[in-house]
């Protein structure tokens, strides 16, 4: 139905979206040593997906980002985050940071903070998939019966 925007926009989006996605992953991965974190990273990743959907149109974008895939990644991210929390049961209780109890690592380096980096990545997957899927669902929504002959909207 929608074919997306002009070639200029498409090419720019093709170039930029990858960088945005990498930036999102970077923000999520370094959350424990610098500002950022899983939520910000996830939202940035979702913004990359939104850019692709807007530039190429929903139908083209759905070849990569489908709603059902988003659902599965959304649930998997949330479930894995919970799994990290449940793993704490082996070393004392719910949400025990079992790696940091063993060794906190060198503060300021990437390998520090125990489960924080893992949790951040899972949250990133969850938030990115959730928001991208939610945006797709909203973009897919079109009015069935237009009140007084509005033109069908384009997005």
């Amino acid at each position, binding site marked *: 139905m929608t074919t997306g925007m002009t070639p200029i926009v498409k090419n720019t989006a093709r170039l930029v979206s990858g960088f945005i996605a990498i930036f999102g992953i970077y923000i999520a991965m370094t959350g424990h040593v610098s500002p950022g974190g899983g939520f910000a990273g996830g939202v940035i990743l979702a913004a990359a997906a939104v850019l692709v959907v807007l530039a190429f149109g929903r139908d083209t974008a759905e070849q990569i980002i489908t709603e*059902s895939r988003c*659902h*599965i990644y*959304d*649930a*998997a991210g*949330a*479930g894995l985050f*919970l799994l990290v*929390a*449940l793993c*704490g*049961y082996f070393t*004392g*209780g*719910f*949400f*025990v*940071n079992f790696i940091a*109890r063993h060794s906190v690592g060198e503060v300021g380096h990437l390998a520090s903070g125990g489960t924080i980096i893992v949790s951040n990545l899972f949250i990133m997957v969850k938030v990115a998939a959730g928001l991208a899927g939610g945006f797709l669902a909203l973009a897919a929504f079109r009015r069935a019966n237009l009140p007084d002959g509005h033109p069908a909207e384009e997005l």
Partner: protein
Amino acid sequence: MESIVPLLVAFPLGMAFAVVAMAHVKGLKRLTAPLAVGVVLANLILTFILLGAVVPRIFVGGWGPDPEKALGIEMLGDGLSKMMLVIINLVALVSLIFAGAYMRRFTKVWLFQALFLLMTGAMNGVVLAGDLFNLFVFLEVAAIASYALVAFGCESEELEAAFRYLVLGTVGSAFILLGVTILYSLTGQLNMAAVAQKLELIGTSPAVLLAAAALIAGLSLKAAMVPFHAWLPDAHPSAPAPVSAMLSGVLIKASGIYAIARLVFNVFGPTPQYATILIALGAASMVLGMLMALGQWDLKRLLAYSSISQAGYIILALGVAAEVMSRAQPDEAVAGLCLFGGLFHLFNHAAFKGLLFLASGSIEQQVGTRQLKEMGGLGRSMRVTGFCCRIGALSIAGVPPFNGFFSKLIIIIALAMAHQYVLCAIAAGVAVGTLLMYVKVQRYALEGPASGRAAGATEAPVLMCVALVVLAAVCVAAGVAMVPLRDHLFGPARDVLLEATKALSTGVIR
């Protein structure tokens, strides 16, 4: 034993994630409904295991309770929380069984199951929270799930009701967060026990009162106390019947009344100011809810207004208990009786209002209408549903020997013993009004000639009848087994409230 407590929240949430993933895998899709029922059943069993145990203070993540590490979020496993857990998981289980047959009319039922599990898990989280901000977070999860569930039918009426519910609910949440903010800036703590200890030093300064006012206003919006009730008469009837049963039976209690009781008694401490606010809210809700319900001809709207009125009873009992406890010479026996009456009524209302909403759902499905005037003779054509509906109506109307009679009697006696004769008269008058209201339901729905659509009505599917029978049995059993229930379920809960601000910090160092 304390290691089960976090599971009560984590398990339903995790399984809700699993339900969503399963819905996209071929072959697993039909397993979501049994899974959801199994999860809630497991939760109920865990709750009963917990009921017999003494739970020490639990800190998530191992950050506590010794003062060297006391940094984490506390979870409460005391009598009050256990009582609420029993109510939540019992009604949730019955509603889910009922939904197995009822939700066939709806599309994408797995969404319903996932949202329902998330709401149940979040409500467990609310009643287990021992930390102000954690309480807010789980209130939000439960509230957002309930907005979506109210709109689940996706028709105009549902959407409009859900939108109004969402707007008022979000304003309530903003006020709750504002209250938490002010309390944090005053005390530097979020842990309820630590905040309570700090507040005892501070007393009631204007800033504390502002925080309390913001919290009570926000939570009253969630509990639909008059004058914050505008959303409830639209939202509860619009939802699918199992969701209405959950909202009226449990959600307004877990995220409204329970949270008010916990904060007023255990964090702020019962003082005359808070007692007056609670009494005013409770009395207004009782009277106005009853008056508006009397004029309704739509069965589900009548039940919704009646929920406001019955919730008013509970808040009134809590308010009078707070007033008695704030006197110069507090009379523990009278306050205890008030609290017992209020908590017993909370349990009873969950049982019979859940039952009545589910019964109204099966009537609506079989007859095709919610208008009382278009029904009639259902006691004959739908025997099981009619019989259970009659038990529910008799219970809520306060006819002996059902449970509603005892809880209302206890509240009225306790009000008299507290020398609150005006309130006592109001409570008795509202009880009479409630009786009239349910005589009307009996007269028009169950008795009389079957006219129009009601003539062809047949009995509801087996699963729906099973759910109704279970709740009807609970109603009868709670009336008969009042004394053992008091000793094992309501007694510990009452003691938590009676201990006021000392309750949360017993055995604590921080």
